[in-house]
């Protein structure tokens, strides 16, 4: 294994390199109704859509990169090509100097893909059994396994769940056990596809803190897709944004945040009727109004001032400020004229 791994890219060469990467899917069309179904049997109609088109990406070893875009932008398809699950239609992708789709054993032993709640854990067995199985598959020596396991268990705080059947674990416990399984072989490249999806705020924070600590210790190259802006802000300085398969931004997260004009969602509830002079359209964009409860999109910088103004107007029994969904902001950004 060691001699094979030396053939993978050295640390001074790009960890991930794509050139004109494209992946098309064949879509079969069928009009409504029985006659159209019968017609489709004899003369099926197909079209091709590009999930990813002409994508050029270069990521250096040890980089932490956020991979963003609205739903259907091609993020997951790109990760699947980079990890060797699907083949590109056109262009090239090299990860650690290898063509991922060849799925050579030493390449696979150097990467890991964590996809939301998709399971590596064996459903009917405790995580300890899955970890032991992975030890054999990845050819990890017993002392090394013990040491790595101890570190992961401590960092992820999963000591108490290792011997409980996976199907009986809570979502948060399972996600952390999944991470332990995915990282047991110390991958050089870690693809994370929505790693905090479905988790509560506390658990999201724990996962983010773990990933930061893990990266500080072992410096894997980390490519993260997430709809959660907090994940991206906490983990990534550099972000790549794609839209309809095309790369539309590659650079600093702060600059993207300024460009995307990330709004805040302000929700205010009045005890009875709103005070005289209250005009939600003057404060921002009204999202919804129900009885005495108003939900508004407010420019990020304006949020504290508007909140103060509402409190001072009296009659407020509840007021919350949240991040606007990242994909909304990105969709707005892409919908703007090119200027």
């Amino acid at each position, binding site marked *: 294994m060691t001699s094979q791994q030396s053939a993978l890219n050295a640390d001074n060469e790009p960890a991930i390199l794509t050139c004109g990467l494209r992946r098309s899917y064949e879509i079969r069309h069928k009009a409504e109704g029985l006659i159209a179904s019968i017609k489709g049997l004899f003369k099926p109609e197909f079209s091709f859509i590009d999930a990813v088109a002409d994508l050029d990406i270069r990521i250096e070893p040890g980089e932490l990169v956020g991979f963003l875009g609205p739903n259907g932008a091609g993020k997951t398809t790109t990760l699947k090509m980079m990890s060797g699950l699907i083949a590109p239609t056109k262009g090239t992708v090299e990860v650690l100097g290898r063509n991922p789709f060849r799925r050579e*054993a030493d390449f696979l032993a150097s990467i890991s893909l964590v996809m939301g709640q998709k399971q590596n854990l064996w459903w009917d067995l405790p995580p300890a059994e899955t970890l032991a199985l992975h030890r054999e598959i990845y050819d990890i020596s017993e002392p090394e396994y013990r040491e790595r396991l101890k570190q992961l268990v401590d960092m992820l705080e999963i000591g108490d769940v290792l011997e409980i059947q996976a199907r009986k674990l809570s979502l948060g416990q399972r996600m952390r056990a999944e991470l332990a399984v995915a990282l047991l072989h110390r991958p050089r490249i870690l693809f994370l596809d929505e790693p905090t999806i479905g988790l509560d705020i506390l658990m999201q924070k724990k996962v983010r803190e773990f990933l930061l600590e893990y990266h500080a210790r072992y410096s894997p190259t980390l490519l993260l897709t997430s709809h959660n802006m907090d994940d991206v802000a906490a983990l990534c300085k550099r972000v790549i944004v794609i839209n309809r398969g095309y790369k539309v931004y590659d650079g600093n997260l702060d600059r993207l945040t300024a460009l995307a004009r990330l709004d805040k969602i302000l929700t205010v509830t009045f005890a009875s009727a709103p005070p005289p002079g209250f005009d939600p359209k003057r404060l921002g964009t009204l999202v919804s109004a129900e009885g005495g409860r108003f939900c508004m999109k407010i420019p990020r910088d304006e949020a504290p001032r508007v909140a103060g103004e509402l409190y001072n107007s009296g009659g407020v029994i509840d007021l919350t400020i949240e991040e606007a969904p990242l994909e909304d902001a990105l969709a707005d950004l892409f919908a703007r004229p090119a200027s």
Partner: protein
Amino acid sequence: MNARVAKMVRIGMALLSAHWQSVLAYRGTMLVQTVQKIMMPTVLLAAWLSVARKSGTSYEEADYLLYFICIPIVTSLTSCSIMYTLPAQIRDGSLSRDLLKPLHPLWTHVFEHLASNAIMLLYLMPAPLLLGLWFHDRLPAVDMSPRHLTLFLGVFLLAIILRFVMGTLIALAGFWIEHVETLNLVFNAGLWAMLGGMIVPVETFPPTIRVIANALPYRYTLSFPLEVLRGHLPITDLAAGIATGISWTVVLIFLGRVLWLRGLLNWSAYGG
């Protein structure tokens, strides 16, 4: 090479252990499957015993007894579930998790097959043993020499491999077809039961149908090992049977490899 074999053995043992633990979580299901595997041959045994008494065939009562008592053992070790599990993985995208490991995904299915069949055999063994004891004075004498037993175990092993390869081919159709159940029902259940010897031993088929059965792979997954155990096959038939069984295995493995590579190229990993 030795290190690679040793590693594969370690992985195999770990997978067997994991699968055994998983299978043991579904003891009730195993019990139902056991009853299903015993019921049909027992009903067929009763039917063919009455036929054997009335009309003379190449099989006598004792031969039918041996054949149908042994059938549950053969089917429990040759049956596989890859036709259900692999297409489901292809459909829901969970094949991704196995494709990302430095171990060919089909190995997991191989060891799942071995683990569940070994447990199934444990569940099932009491029934043939009891039937064997009950009818011991009516069973034919079986050659128990090491040479004959080795030959029987060899063709039995061939049957296990060939049936798994046939199941895998059906499963691989899942890359192109949404549901492979019908394909499985026709090619891996219906034709297998008719031409493999589930309903009646192939040796008792009419000559024309026997030629077809001899040429297709089904016989070598069920009837052939039991014909070898019975010990009445002429040496030429024995050699031809072994050669045909091995040829089918090699050809189908090659076809499976082509389908696997083409299928992956075609696959979109939806949902995974």
